[in-house]
């Protein structure tokens, strides 16, 4: 009688109990809640997968930037469609992202001041992407640049390289 009073279901007869003093109702409650919990977590997981697209119809991240002769020596050229600067310096070619590292606005090359400036929040960069001032936390990244077999510049916007890596033509 005393162990019946201590249990959570004093009215449940002893015959309805499984070992360890767990009642059938407790057992079924836990199994049901556990199953619902697993199903709930599974639903969250598959919903997350559903919302994460596998195929994207976005512009290609690799592009041809034309013949190297198009770019005069010591020049910065803004390719608007690709949001990339092609910089040609005496030491060689490099491609600098035109997307500000602050909040993703497209920066502009100011030839008079010889710097890259962001119209949104005023970040300023040198032509090699190093930060002069402004809220931008990082310098503008350099993209991998190479030559195709037929001698055109090829830029891969998914591949970042060190600023020291320049393409000599």
């Amino acid at each position, binding site marked *: 009688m005393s162990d019946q009073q201590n249990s959570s279901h004093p009215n449940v007869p002893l015959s309805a109990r499984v070992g360890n003093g767990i009642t059938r109702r407790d057992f079924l409650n836990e199994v049901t809640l556990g199953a619902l919990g697993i199903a709930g977590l599974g639903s969250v997981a598959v919903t997350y997968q559903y919302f994460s*697209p596998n195929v994207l119809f976005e512009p290609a991240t690799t592009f041809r930037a034309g013949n190297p002769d198009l770019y005069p020596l010591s020049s910065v050229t803004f390719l608007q469609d690709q949001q990339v600067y092609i910089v040609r310096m005496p030491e060689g070619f490099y491609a600098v992202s035109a997307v500000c590292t602050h909040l993703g606005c497209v920066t502009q090359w100011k030839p008079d001041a010889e710097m890259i400036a962001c119209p*949104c929040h005023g970040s300023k960069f040198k032509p090699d992407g190093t930060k002069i001032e402004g809220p931008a936390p990082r310098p503008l990244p350099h993209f991998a640049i190479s030559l195709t077999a037929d001698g055109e510049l090829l830029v891969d916007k998914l591949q970042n390289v060190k600023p020291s890596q320049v393409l000599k033509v």
Partner: protein
Amino acid sequence: MATTFQSAFHSLRETKVWKSIFRRGPANTKRTRSHAVFGNLSLHWLPVKVREKSLRVRASYYLGSISFILFIVLFVTGILLMFYYHPAAPHAYRDMKDLQFVVSNGVFLRNLHRLAAHLMVFAVFWHMFHVFYRGGYKPPHEFNWIIGVVLLLLTLFLSYTGYLLPWDQLAFWAVTVGTNIISAMPFVGNKVRFILLGGNIVGENALLRFYVLHVVILPLVAFFFIGIHFWRVQKDGGLTTKHRDGDGQE
């Protein structure tokens, strides 16, 4: 004339049809009146009795009601705008321009939606400040204050998702900047941005996702929380009035 009308209305309320719809006969005593409010789906979140004090303009400036009326205006005009707007990149901007220049009264509806949206953000903020300075966050109103904060965030999310839909330069860059702020979140930022935009750039998927959030998910959630908010105002004993707090003011 007035009495004939009144007696006609009175006998109408005695009919079987009226009683079957409203579940009771005429509400002519205090008791039957309170039952009429309790037993009616569209009235049950209203208080049966209100203190005269809380009806004064200075008690609330009706800011909560103004916010709600603006929400209803946005709901109605928004549904009407949906009849001409395709949430797809080739159409969105042109549909918005069509609403301005081609569709009859389209410019009126679009401007009503825009202005009501701006006003609603303003009204909700003003409502929050007013409640704050009156001490409306103190017990027993503290839970409803939290619901209010959720409603403020929902208002801002609604405003932000609606901002992208015209698909013009302002919309594009506002969402570019805003979603880059999201990606500054530690650890999960880039993932959240990817899921929200449905990609890496503000494109077709982002437009569609913001549209669905703007016209279905956020309004539904907002309606749910508005319901709780109004119901709790009543359950917590009406508006905060200075005398009731007994903090020696006034």
